[in-house]
């Protein structure tokens, strides 16, 4: 509940009372103790939950689950939005809970942490249990094979052979409290990875490039011409596309059909005598569903919310591909997406780049950034702190740049 304070979210009506009224000082103290117990004492319990970063909100969610001291705790992708020291705290917490007798079911697609934390591993694929194993008896490679039905080397397409002319040139772009003096260039035909921890300003940069917010300083050139998008409408018209990090809140209209969602960006141009040309729309939408292999195949009339996370993401991508953009910004495109669909997404984006699109791939998944990009930019506290060649760097080096500790 974003409007309510952290305390209210944590205690959820079970407040300490005095003379029938809520004893706020005691409630905040209780909340602070709760947060401190799990190592998240940096959070002020009086802030409205909605003002916290996504990572902090996640911690509050976890703290909330612990209020009732459960004997069984299911954590569904708890690490998806966490990084760095937050992750370490989460791992310490999970180990501590397990040591004290709580049964923890930890759902994750981060294989390293699964191998590290778990005592028993269940691999689920297509709604069925594909294997039950233990960390000592398996490896990342084997887990990937069990999940995706293919080996690691087959997950990411080969790197693109070369790059074309500069498409999007950004120089000295700043926006107060979000990012500072960002300069980068995207060329036709390349995928540039942008790695940064939650809160580093990556998504804010994407929003700004897309005209959703306005920069305070700096210049953006598209195909050599200076541009300044006053709103997303102008950015879209100029050939930009943005797949946002939060499908539900900014990528889809959940109550509408798959067809309406995919046609959202093109309905104004698919008209005949002022009315939407339903024949053309149907052909365009079915074409996309086939091309991106959105499952199930006859989903055009279904509410988009009934699709799986991965297929929802494909629907978001389809919406943009119908616009035939020249610059594609992907913000955490594989978050909450199953392995098989990820492989599909990497292949689709690779195809697009090979036909001349400039792609900016924003991600907090190190393996993905290094596997799928031709160049890697690292962001820390609103600044681009490094540019690395994915073939000549390591996960540790990228991480070091992202927390400002690079040599």
């Amino acid at each position: 509940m974003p409007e309510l304070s952290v305390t209210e979210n944590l205690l959820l009506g079970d407040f300490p009372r005095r003379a029938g009224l809520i004893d706020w000082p005691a409630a905040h103290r209780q909340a602070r103790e709760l947060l401190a117990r799990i190592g998240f004492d940096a959070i002020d319990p009086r802030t409205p939950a909605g003002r916290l970063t996504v990572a902090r909100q996640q911690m509050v969610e976890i703290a909330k689950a612990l209020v009732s001291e459960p004997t069984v705790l299911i954590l569904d992708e708890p690490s998806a939005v966490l990084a760095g020291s937050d992750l370490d705290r989460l791992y310490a917490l999970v180990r501590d809970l397990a040591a004290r007798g709580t049964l923890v079911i930890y759902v994750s697609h981060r294989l390293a942490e699964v191998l590290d934390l778990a005592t028993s591993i269940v691999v689920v694929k297509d709604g069925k249990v594909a294997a039950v194993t233990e960390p000592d008896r398996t490896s990342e490679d084997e887990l990937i094979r069990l999940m995706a039905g293919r080996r690691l080397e087959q997950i990411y397409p080969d790197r693109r052979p070369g790059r074309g002319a500069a498409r999007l040139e950004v120089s000295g772009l700043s926006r107060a409290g979000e990012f500072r003096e960002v300069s980068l260039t995207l060329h036709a035909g390349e995928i540039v990875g942008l790695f940064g921890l939650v809160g580093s300003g990556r998504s804010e940069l994407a929003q700004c490039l897309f005209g959703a917010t306005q920069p305070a300083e700096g210049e953006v050139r598209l195909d050599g011409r200076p541009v300044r998008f006053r709103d997303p409408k102008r950015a879209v018209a100029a050939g930009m596309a943005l797949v946002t990090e939060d499908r539900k809140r900014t990528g889809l209209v959940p109550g509408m059909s798959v067809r309406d969602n995919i046609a959202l960006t093109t309905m104004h141009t698919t008209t005949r005598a002022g009315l939407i040309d339903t024949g053309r729309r149907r052909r365009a939408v079915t074409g996309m569903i086939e091309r991106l292999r959105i499952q199930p195949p006859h989903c055009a009339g279904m509410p988009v919310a009934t699709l799986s996370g991965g297929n929802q993401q494909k629907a978001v991508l389809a919406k943009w591909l119908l616009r035939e953009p020249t610059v594609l910004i992907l913000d955490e495109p594989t978050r909450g997406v199953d392995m098989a669909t990820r492989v599909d997404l990497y292949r689709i984006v690779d195809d697009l780049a090979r036909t001349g699109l400039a792609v900016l791939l924003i991600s907090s998944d190190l393996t993905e950034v290094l596997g799928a990009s031709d160049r890697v930019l690292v962001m820390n506290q609103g600044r681009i702190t490094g540019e690395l060649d994915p073939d000549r760097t390591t996960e540790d080096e990228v991480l070091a740049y992202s927390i400002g500790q690079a040599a």
Partner: protein
Amino acid sequence: MTDQLTPTAESKSVDAAPRRAYRMPRLMIRGRDLTAEAVFVGLVGILLLVAALTSDTFFTQTNLTNLLKQMVTTGLLAFGMLVVILTGGIDLSVGSVVAFAGIVTAGLVSGLPIPVAMAVGVASGILFGLINGTLVARFGLAPFVVTLAALTTIRGLAFVYSEVPIAPEDPAFFRLGSALLGPIPVSTLIMLAVFLAGGVFLGRTPAGRSIIAIGGNAETVRLAGINVRRYVILAYTISGGCAGLAGVILASRVGIAQPSVGVAFELDAIAACVIGGASLAGGRGSAKATLGGVLVLVVINNLLNLYGVQSFWQQVLKGLIIIAVILVQRTRLPGRTLT
């Protein structure tokens, strides 16, 4: 005892499988779920059956013609309201617009040709809608507050224009509201035409689809490169225009324009939308179903009048019936609310 908690981002997301409170048998015809429609047709059928069995006067031509005339005001207001509700907003000012448009038209009839006076009445509604929409879309004010303020402002303006009712003497003034085409009032045909055009607008035009999408998720629509403000303003303008037209027709039907007419009309309009399955959160609702909602509402009103039920009890009964109808209508939801 076992606690099961899933504190995650994903568990709250649309990825989660829809959960149904209960499952009822569904009517599927050619792959389309027509349960809601079937329930609705059944409901209206039962209502009409009750009417036929218990009242000698319901199925007389006089009463039916009367009923069709009574539908017009609620119908026009309900369509305009639907468009606003689809964006996730609400328009509480429509009742006052009805009064203002009526009294201005009646006042102008003495000096201007009747069609021009009527056009001015409708235009005044469009202007009020434009102002409402601009305040909501451009200044980011809450629709409830803006249109509540408009409700009292416009009502005041109607009284400022004329404290006393105005009754034009030219018989041509009554024609719009009372003329018949065979057994069917012309004004009813106008209302049906609005619904017909409105159905096409919402279903087939980029503007209509955008309005529905905005109610579903305005930020997604904005980021898709669509001018959200423009369509929100358009929605309120349509509502204002419909209310203006309703006011002009009402004054013409009654033959006298009163500055006090139309109090609480917005409630019937909202009720009609909701009975027709529209979500007050926006993004869901249709012209066809809203017309059905209008029919249910007007038939209930008419029956209660025929039974001679005291007007206060009418209000009580109408409220209870609306709740009952909405409970039944809820079966059209797949058990999932948009959050």
